[in-house]
């Protein structure tokens, strides 16, 4: 039975194209990873396996610069992701637990606005805005811009999760004389947790990886990892850049995998 239907669905050529798709997506990343372990100082010649470029990232001449950039990147990402996750939880509660109201569609449009507008336009607008109100470019401007930009990425998994939770949980809690705060923190939030974790991790990755907006609003002197990498690449791709790229790449992969597992943990106890 399956044999026949499989045959109808099957198009020869689609498997090779899918494999090409994966090779295209992963090939360049894997090659950079391999070359980051290259012992030779020339980036073209393979000189055997070595960790010297990783050593240089942490202890070399440029190490202080990259450490400062990494510190900025991580502190900004943690604060931006936490703030945007809290805002996203509030918005999801309003959108999905407060019935129909005027402005619901507008709110959804507003929340997804940072996804629709090309990033460079958001970057220009934000830079002009900060300059108009006289907000000095630096660490704080990057943080504030990231909070706004991360909201939709945190919102989507949280809203998806909340949509799958029936409202009788919190209704039962309130019937049993829980306050609204108790109903949220003791009943609803634990149920939403997989979505919240997933949203937080995605917002974290988005903030950590952002280049275009950061590059516009950072001002002189403050760097994050992506802007430091971009500055270094402008002078040519060096092996230590490949090592630091590999580290950042592995970090994104780990966070996305965790976010994915968190989301999955949620769907399992439903079915």
């Amino acid at each position: 039975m399956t044999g026949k239907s499989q045959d109808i669905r099957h198009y020869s050529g689609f498997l090779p194209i899918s494999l090409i798709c994966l090779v295209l997506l992963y090939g360049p990343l894997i090659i950079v990873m391999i070359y980051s372990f290259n012992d030779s100082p020339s980036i073209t010649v393979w000189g055997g396996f070595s960790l010297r470029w990783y050593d240089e990232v942490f202890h070399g001449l440029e190490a202080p610069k990259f450490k400062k950039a990494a510190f900025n990147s991580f502190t900004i990402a943690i604060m931006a992701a936490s703030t945007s996750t809290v805002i996203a939880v509030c918005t999801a509660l309003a959108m999905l637990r407060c019935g129909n109201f005027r402005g619901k569609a507008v709110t959804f449009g507003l929340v997804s606005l940072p996804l629709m507008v090309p990033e460079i336009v958001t970057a220009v607008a934000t830079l002009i805005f900060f300059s108009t109100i006289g907000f000095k470019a630096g660490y704080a401007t990057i943080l504030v811009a990231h909070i706004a930009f991360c909201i939709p990425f945190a919102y989507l998994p949280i809203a998806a999760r909340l949509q799958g939770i029936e409202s009788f949980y919190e209704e039962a809690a309130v019937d049993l004389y829980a306050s609204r705060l108790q109903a949220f923190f003791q009943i609803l939030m634990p149920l939403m947790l997989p979505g919240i974790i997933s949203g937080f991790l995605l917002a974290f990755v988005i903030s950590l990886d952002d280049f275009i907006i950061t590059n516009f609003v950072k001002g002189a002197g403050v760097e994050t990892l992506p802007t430091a990498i971009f500055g270094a690449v402008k002078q040519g791709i060096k092996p230590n850049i490949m090592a630091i790229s590999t580290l950042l790449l592995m970090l994104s992969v780990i966070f996305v995998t965790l976010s994915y597992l968190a989301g999955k943990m949620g769907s399992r106890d439903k079915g």
Partner: protein
Amino acid sequence: MTGTSTGVFSGLRNWLLLPSWLVIGVLVLSPVFIMLVYSFLTKEFRGGVIWDFTLAAYDQFFLDRGLFGDEPPKMEWTYINIFWRSIWQALLATLLCLLIGFPTAYFIATRPPSARTVWLFMVTVPYWVNLLIRTVSMKFLIRDNGPVNEWLLATGMISEPIHLINTPIAVQLGLFYSYLPFMVLPVYAAMERYSFSLSEAAADLYASKWFTLWHIVIPSVRPGIIAGCILVFIPSMGAFLAPDLLGGARNFMIGSLIEEQFKGTAGNWPFGAAASMILLSAVLLVLLYYTHYQSKTGIAKN
């Protein structure tokens, strides 16, 4: 089910909405309006503006009035050409993504559920990997003495390295590579809802497989295809990293043109704001078409 407005948190609705309205309203929406105002202001040297209203920025984009501004206006092609290049590069990237992305999405949708999850995860991961690092990897790969050329030389398939960096082809490759996952995911989401019994019915009625694909499958998943095309087209059109790192000075796209206006001392903020407004208008047109299309066809779906 009926009392939708009597939920536990209904009384707090406005307080719950406040943070996102405030943050996005103040940090995304109002800046776009300020940018619109800026595009009508006079430029100041060393970046910044003078608050004198003028159409100079738009004039500079479309018209050429000579070096001293006293000649009769002619069409200024430099910026229109950059804009036009952005459009066709983005269209081509969309087409290539569709050519690779559609078969991939179809293939994934026909896998057994467990394999489907793995494939989907594999396609999603690059979507979240730093775009800068992905573009740098592509640059590393296709350099004149990069691994691809080395390998082709070593196998004797070519006798001289293929020069790709700083060509339009390299930019295209970068865009296509950057946004490919954006195509696969929405097309897959639509394929997942497609009922393969339709394909079987078509086969029973002696339709050939490719006829079925073209006349049954593709029309059924068209909303997903259009969503994918928009998700590739919009960021490709405003792309900065691919044209900057892979294209060099001769393959400017509108993103690089905008960036240049805000960096260094040669900047012209009103002109950059005007170019951003022109890009934003083009994007809004595409999105308007999309919502129009959705309201025409999407209602039956839900």
